[in-house]
Structures are given as C-alpha cells and as structure tokens.
C-alpha cells in the first residue's frame, strides 16, 4: 500500500513538472507582473462600481487618460527627462566619490585613519535634514537636487565598497602575491572581483535612496520634474496626475533596479547564488 502511495506521489510530481500552468503560459520574467496587473484590474473594477470615489483615487483608466493627455502636451516626457537626469547625475557624482573613498579606505590604512571618522560622523546626519540649509545655499536650482542625491547615494556605495574590499579572502591575496601578481594585477584579478558582490548590494541600496531623495527634494523645492508635477496637480486637485506621478516613480525605481540586477547577473556569473 505504501508502495502505491509512493508511486502516485511520484507520478503527481512528474505531472506537475510537466504541466506547471503558470510557467507554460508566461516567460519567467513576466510572472512578476501578474500581481500588479491583477491589482490594477481590481482597482479599475472597484472604481467602476463606485466603491472608490474618483476624488480619492481615480480609476486606472482615468490615470491612463491623464498620461495620454500629458504626453500629448509634452509635459510628461519633459518632466520624466528632467527627473531622470537629476537622479542620474546625482548618482554619478555621489557614486563616484563614494567609490573613490571606499576603494582608498579599503586599500590604504592611512587613508582610512584620515577620513573614516569624519565620514562616519557625517553619515549619522540624515541627509534630508540638510534640505533647509541646501535651499539657503542653492535655492531651488539644480545644484540643490544634485547635492542631496549625491550625498544620499554616497554612503551606501562608500560603506559597501569598503566592506567588500575588507572581506576579500586574505588567503587569495597571499596566493596572488606568491604567484607574482603586482599591486595592479592583484587589485584587478583578486580584490575587485572579491569586493564586487558587496559593491552591488551598495549599488542597489543607493538606487533606492536616489529616488527617495529626489522625490522629497522635488516635492519641496523644484520648478520642474515629476515631484513638481505632482505638487502642481495637487494645487488644482488633479488627483489623476498625482497618482500618475507616483506610478511613474514606481516604474522608474523598478527600471533602475532591473538594470542593476542585470549588471549583477552579468558580472557575478561565477557566484553560485547568481547562477540560473
């Protein structure tokens, strides 16, 4: 009897792996979009049934209509472009500086002694607390946003680069030395690849902070961008545009994360955890 139950269980397992309805109809990457699509459908349905008042949360179709309207006027593309450029430039500046300090302090004890205490003190000040000061310094111009985003992005990149370099296996470094690697080769072939997984953690964390900082900065002090668009819409009670802005932030954040993941998978192929 136990034999037959075993057999049926085995057969069931075979059947399951053979059919697996979800994966058969959708490619792997599309499954992640199933839940958002379902939520939007339910949201649309409830709005049509009058369960959600339009002045609280407009229907997805209304949001889509707003998107079409703003695209036609060119306003949407302009604001997305402005926001993306701000995010990217702040990220590049803060990320580069963070990377430089992370590498320097990871590789040189002197550099670390010199700067780490200062950096740790600055890190403990929430960068968004600097907004009043930044507005005083830069007004609401581009520099203010760039400064805040760069500052926010700096620390996760710095700390994770430093940690990554610290956690490189010293036995591998010793091996590299025995096999005659010079400092440069040791860095490229042993230290940097060893630090990379940790650096990617920093990268993804920094992308999150990048959007967060930008949203706050654009909402408080800006004359263009998605955050500004949302605040303007609030003035005129255009709830659909407010919701659209929020959705665009979500999509841009997801896009940035996907790019980071792709880079991660390409450069960490050797890592068993990233292999598919």
């Amino acid at each position, binding site marked *: 009897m136990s034999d037959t139950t075993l057999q049926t269980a085995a057969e069931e397992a075979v059947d399951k792996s053979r059919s697996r309805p979800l994966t058969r109809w959708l490619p792997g990457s599309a499954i992640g979009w199933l839940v958002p699509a379902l939520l939007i459908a339910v949201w649309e349905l409830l709005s049509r049934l009058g369960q959600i008042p339009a002045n609280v949360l407009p229907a997805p179709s209304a949001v889509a209509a707003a998107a079409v309207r703003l695209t036609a006027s060119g306003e949407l593309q302009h604001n997305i472009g402005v926001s993306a450029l701000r995010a990217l430039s702040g990220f590049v500046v803060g990320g580069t500086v963070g990377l430089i300090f992370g590498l320097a302090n990871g590789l040189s004890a002197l550099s670390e002694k010199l700067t780490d205490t200062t950096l740790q003190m600055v890190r403990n000040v929430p960068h968004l607390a600097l907004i009043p000061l930044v507005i005083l310094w830069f007004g609401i111009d581009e520099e203010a946003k760039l400064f805040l985003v760069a500052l926010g992005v700096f620390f996760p990149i710095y700390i994770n680069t430093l940690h990554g370099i610290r956690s490189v296996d010293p036995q591998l470094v010793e091996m590299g030395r025995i096999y005659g690697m010079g400092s440069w080769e040791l860095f490229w072939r042993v230290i940097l690849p060893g630090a990379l997984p940790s650096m990617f953690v920093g990268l993804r964390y920094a992308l999150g902070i990048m959007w967060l900082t930008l949203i706050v900065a654009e909402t408080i002090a800006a004359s263009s961008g998605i955050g500004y668009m949302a605040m303007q819409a609030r003035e005129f009670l255009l709830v659909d545009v407010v919701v659209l802005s929020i959705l665009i932030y979500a999509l841009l954040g997801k896009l940035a994360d996907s790019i980071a993941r792709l880079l991660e998978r390409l450069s960490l192929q050797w890592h*068993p955890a990233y292999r598919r």
Partner: protein
Amino acid sequence: MNAVAAAISRREGRFPSAAPVQAHGNARGVPVTLRGLAKSFGPKQVLKAVDLHIPAGQFVAVVGKSGCGKSTLLRLIVGLEQATAGRVLIDAEEGRPSGARIMFQEPRLLPWARVRGNVEVGLDRSLATSERRLKAQDALAEVGLDDRGDEWPAVLSGGQKQRVALARALAGHPRLLALDEPLGALDALTRIGMQRLIESVWQQQGFTAVLVTHDVAEAIALADRILVIDEGRIAADLPIDAPRPRHRGDPALAALEGRILDRLFNDQGSGI
C-alpha cells in the same frame, strides 16, 4: 635526544645517495640550504636555529605535531615569512625564490575565474595569450582535468579543486614545490589518488619537493627523506630508501611508520 637529532641532521649534504634524483630525465630541481634559520612570533620561538640541506630534486617530507613549526619552516623556505635569524639559500642564492611555488591545504582558486584562468595565474605574465592558454591546457591535462577548463571552480569537488591548484603550481614548471598539507582536507581515497599524481609529476618534472604533512603514512609513501620536527628543531632526519612505486601496507614501511609515530608521541627516541 637533541644530541641524536643534531648528529643526524649533520649528515646533510652527503644525503642524496638513495634519492632517485638521477633517474629524472630533466632534473630541474634546485638545492635548498638553511643556515641557522630561526623564527619568533613575539616572545614565542617557533624555529630554533635549523640547519638543513636539501639536494636538487629530492622529495622531502616534514612531519611533526601541530604547532611544532613545520608550516613556518615551509613558509620561510618559499619566502612567505621573514626569518628572525639565519638564512635561506635556494640554488645558493638568497632572496625570494622566483621558481618556487606553494600549494596549500585550501585550493585557493579564484572563484571568479574559470578553471583555465586559474591555472594561467601560475604562468609567466610575459607569455602571449594563446601560449598561456596552451600551457594551461597542458597543465590541466597533466592532472587529468583537461576537459574541465571552462568550468567555474564552484562546480568542482574538493579533490578536483586541489588538482586545479596543483596544475596552477605546475604550470610554470617550478624548480621548487612546497606543499603545505595539500591533501589534509581530502577523503582517504581521493588522497591516495592525489599522492600518486604528485609522485608521478615529481618524477616527470624533477623539481625539489618539500611536503609538510601530519600523515606519516603519506610522508613514507612519497618522500626520499623524512624530517621530524619537534619544538622548533629537526629531531630526526630519516632516509627512505624503499623503491618506487611504494606499496601501501608493505611491512617494512609499516614498521618505519610505527617507529616515526613512536618518536612523535614519546620523545624517547626508541631506536630511530
């Protein structure tokens, strides 16, 4: 006991009588000489004035209890540590030996480089890419992994990883190969296979080999000569004349193993 040890170690230099050095077609090994070599870590003296001569191409095994200083001796020979006193002469020259390679208990492969890339680490940087590739492939073939060059190290078994490490060490045709308990983490069967592999590449390439091990049977299976290290000194220096390939379970070798183990465990020096 120390007097005995000193007497034995004084026999250095006249040693190669039994060693099959001459049998190697292309004897590429280098002689290694230690003069009054001492090493301290803080107040702890790990090695006390070691004098030793290893003729070119000899296979020497160093055994001893853990913490006796045998690994330190090896690290000093390949230049991974600086001696507190005394000198290491390789091919009658001082300084970091360029033709020396060391193999550790851990394979120490770069996880982010393919197997072939890892072997190429052991090659001269000045070689052309195609030549490096070819030489790495040869080294892999030598350890029986010629079809695994494109794999990541993570998919290999422990024994295979250690074979890649051996291929990396052999790729540059070393003149001195130091082995720091390279088989310590392997299972018994894999270990025997690796011992045979190490013996055969040593016979083919003729490098000088210094093997640190805690496995006396392994030392007897492989070495021309066994050094017993105790409390930072060479406590015994024993030639192993048995012909190769040596049979495991040979009664004469087993008796020798028993005597060495006795020596390690009660320092009375029972007839060695």
